[in-house]
């Protein structure tokens, strides 16, 4: 492996990486009279080949789904069809200005309108907004909707949101940002939300409850209908975190379980490549009583069959995004749904659950399984035995997996399982890949503990000092 310097270190005065248009107009001093012009623009000066080699080399030190299995629990890192990249790049989509008049973007509006309908059907809900551009952004939208609904009914004392202790960190963070107080609900011995704890926690201050189903332990909350009943009887609403929709798409619907609102993570379930951390998309689906509060504007279909933005939405929470959400991601999700159809979507859930259970059985031969029963699309293993007997921790196992050609699984989450290893294979991995992954996990379990603790051994860098990065802050090149 090579050491790639920063782009700044490649810079040589006078170089430029592109053929430029002629500046054939009047001088800037004439065009911008009285305006102080910037003197120093400290950007790099490199050639095109410098740029291509620099970023290509960097790409070679990075892991992606295209290189191998990415068993990150709750992240649903499945194969990303290249078809999606092709259609999203069509000039009729990529080269549209967001404020073009409706008559010039009927196709885009039609796509949005149809996608709203598809997602409503998949969710078992009545209406959808496509504006939120990430899962956490969708959560915020959903909780703002609940807040608006409560205010509209004059129930301003409802300031609490119930959040299970197994929840994603975004859930409490979002509830807090929207101005709610968080009431933590413990899990029971079965790894599900403790129904009695919910019963004890609800009351006149309950605005709602956030749940992920199946939950982050990979288990279906089988008492969901009862929980929803308790929350509804107390006057609250149910919010669904759609991060784990991959397990149930086409098989079960949040709307049928008693959820009043939910977000999708289109980049997970509907296969937009995650790009190193985004862009994502987090549409929110709601039951009819929440529809008036959805973000403005919305796409509507007029009686003559054309599409337009709706003008008045007096009860709306407002805008969540400057324009129309992450349209490029919406095109990909639309394409995925159209390509798979209803039976294809059901096969997604079936095979993702099949793959997870197959791995659970294999991995479980050498590691503890936190909740040893059939799982949904992911499961949580634990390295507590390894830690006790050899000192090898979950972190070490993850690092050692890199040497075997895999990305590490999600480690130390959910927080309620010690030495947690959350594993999600997704439906797009072959049986052979799963067998090889299990073999790697078994091999690591049998290895010299010192070898594992000092992993990785084949990466461009050895174990990275993360503590130092926070202590001696270097977040911009100053050289």
């Amino acid at each position, binding site marked *: 492996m090579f*050491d790639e310097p920063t782009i700044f270190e490649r810079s040589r005065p006078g170089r430029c990486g*592109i053929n430029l248009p002629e500046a054939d107009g009047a001088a800037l001093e004439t065009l911008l009279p009285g305006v102080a012009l910037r003197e120093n623009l400290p950007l790099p000066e490199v050639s095109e080949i410098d740029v291509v080699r620099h970023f290509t080399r960097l790409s070679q030190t990075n*892991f992606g789904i295209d290189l191998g299995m990415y068993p990150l629990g709750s992240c649903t890192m499945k194969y990303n069809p290249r078809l999606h990249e092709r259609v999203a790049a069509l000039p009729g989509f990529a080269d549209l200005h967001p404020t073009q008049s409706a008559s010039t973007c009927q196709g885009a509006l039609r796509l949005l309108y149809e996608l709203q309908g598809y997602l409503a059907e998949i969710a078992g809900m009545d209406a959808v907004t496509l504006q939120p551009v990430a899962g956490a952004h969708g959560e915020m939208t959903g909780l703002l909707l609940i807040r608006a609904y409560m205010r509209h009914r004059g129930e301003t004392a409802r300031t609490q949101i119930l959040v299970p202790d197994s929840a994603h960190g975004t859930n409490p963070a979002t509830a807090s940002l929207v101005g709610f107080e968080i009431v933590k609900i413990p899990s029971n011995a079965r790894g599900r939300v403790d129904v009695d704890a919910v019963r004890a926690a609800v009351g006149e201050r309950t605005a709602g409850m956030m749940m992920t189903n199946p939950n982050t332990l990979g288990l279906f909350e089988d008492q969901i209908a009862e929980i929803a009943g308790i929350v509804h009887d107390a006057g609250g609403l149910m919010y669904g975190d759609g991060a784990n929709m991959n397990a149930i798409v086409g098989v079960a619907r949040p709307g049928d379980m008693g959820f009043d609102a939910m977000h999708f993570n289109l980049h997970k379930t509907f*296969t937009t490549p995650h790009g190193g951390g985004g862009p994502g998309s987090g549409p929110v689906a709601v039951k009819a009583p929440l529809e008036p509060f959805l973000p403005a504007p919305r796409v509507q279909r007029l009686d003559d069959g054309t599409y337009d933005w709706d003008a008045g939405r007096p009860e709306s929470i407002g805008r969540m995004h400057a324009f129309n959400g992450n349209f490029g991601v919406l095109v990909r999700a639309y394409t995925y749904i159209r390509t798979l159809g209803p039976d294809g979507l059901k096969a997604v859930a079936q095979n993702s659950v*099949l793959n997870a259970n197959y791995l659970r059985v294999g991995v479980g031969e050498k590691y503890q399984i936190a909740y040893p029963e059939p799982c949904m699309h992911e499961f949580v293993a634990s390295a507590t035995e390894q830690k006790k007997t050899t000192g090898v921790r979950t972190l070490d196992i993850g690092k050692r997996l890199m040497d075997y050609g895999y990305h590490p699984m999600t480690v130390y989450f959910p927080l309620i399982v010690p030495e947690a290893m959350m594993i999600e294979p997704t439906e*797009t991995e072959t*049986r052979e890949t799963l067998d090889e992954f299990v073999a790697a996990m078994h091999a690591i379990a049998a290895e010299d503990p010192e070898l594992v603790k000092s992993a*990785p051994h084949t990466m461009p860098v050895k174990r990275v*000092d*993360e503590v130092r990065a926070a202590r001696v802050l270097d977040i911009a090149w100053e050289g």
Partner: protein
Amino acid sequence: MPGYVPHTPEDQRGMLDRIGIAAMDELFAQIPGNLRLAALLDLPHGLSEAESVRHLEGIARTNLDCGRGACFRGAGVYRHFTPSVVPAIMARGEFLTSYTPYQPERSQGMLQTIYEFQSLVCRLLGMDAANASMYDGATALAEAVVMASSITGRKRVLIPASLHPAYYDVCRTFVQGHGICLETVPQTNGLTDIDDTRKRCGNDVAAVVVPQPNYFGMIEDASGLASVAHENGALAIAVVNPMSMALLPPPGEWKADIAVAEGQALGLPMNFGGPLVGLFTCRKEFVRQMPGRIVGGTVDSEGKRAYTLTLQTREQHIRREKASSNICSNEALCALGVTIYLSQLGKIGLRRVAEVSVQRAHEAFEAIRTVPGFEPLFDGPFFHEFPMRCPVPVAEINTKLAERGIIGPQDLGADYPELGNAGVFCCTEMISHEDIAALVATLKEIR
């Protein structure tokens, strides 16, 4: 097997046997029967790849894309040229299909590009610290407003009327839960009145927002507005067009405390308004209050240079309800595009693109004002957008232009009824002299 599932029926049978489950449906035994769908979803049947391409191409064709004619629309999203290298590198699977780089040893490439992104953005805006990107410029501003309120412990924020209206709307939605009150400062001649801002600014104001150039394209006295904020112990939040930073003094020079921008102009397609990419920067002393992901340089166990996510204790996955923000997925791939763009154009190229954009805009301005009925709405210097009062409704003009494949000006009507019938024209380096001539010819016909 439909879709992207590789299993053969034999694979499935063998795997079910290994698990000890008799049939696929039993995989869902945990789900109570009454919650399981009895039938397939009511969705259109699946399409082959070829059919999907044809279907999507058909839909795309019914849109008037900006490549068919010229685009004179800006208003926050701009049609600049994207060098061929940018999409080529972004499409590399190792970047495209990677996850958030939580495991640094296997993600050095993405981590270094984010580090370079942060460095480039800091340099462009003249600021000390940048994060790994936000959803878009508007949400970046909303997060900045929340951050300013939490730093100062104050709840009032002054927002110029010359700020992008959608940015104001997003802020208003976003701050609902924080008890933050947004107050609009009116514009005079297309600019924010400094004296009026001073009158409104008191020791209860958390921040003054400073758009540069503003929604009308006009160049504000940014330094003067920032001073008003500081005189009152408030923070100055800059909202800039990053392309203008090649020519105008950056927020760091005029002492902004937080500076945000929509980064789309730097090499990304318009995408009907998304994905975009929010640039977020601040002064060094506020870095621990900054929302979003941050990459830092460090070393590995052998002392070799390495990169990793840092200051994660601000983030939702560690800090939960006490996090500085709930942002999780940002726009990392778009940030990669910006990084490549800024590297390739560099100091010389970015200046030239900005300069040519300004030249074309002024050429268009001079040409349009010769058309009877069209006159400048304001006087004063503008960057590459300018508002014109129009003789017929802007919507009619745009319909006429669209017939020629031209995307016309942004209508100010709905957001600024007090300004009458006016539209903001924009030019980038993608506008040719012929495009301007064609625009003017059509405007003359309308008249």
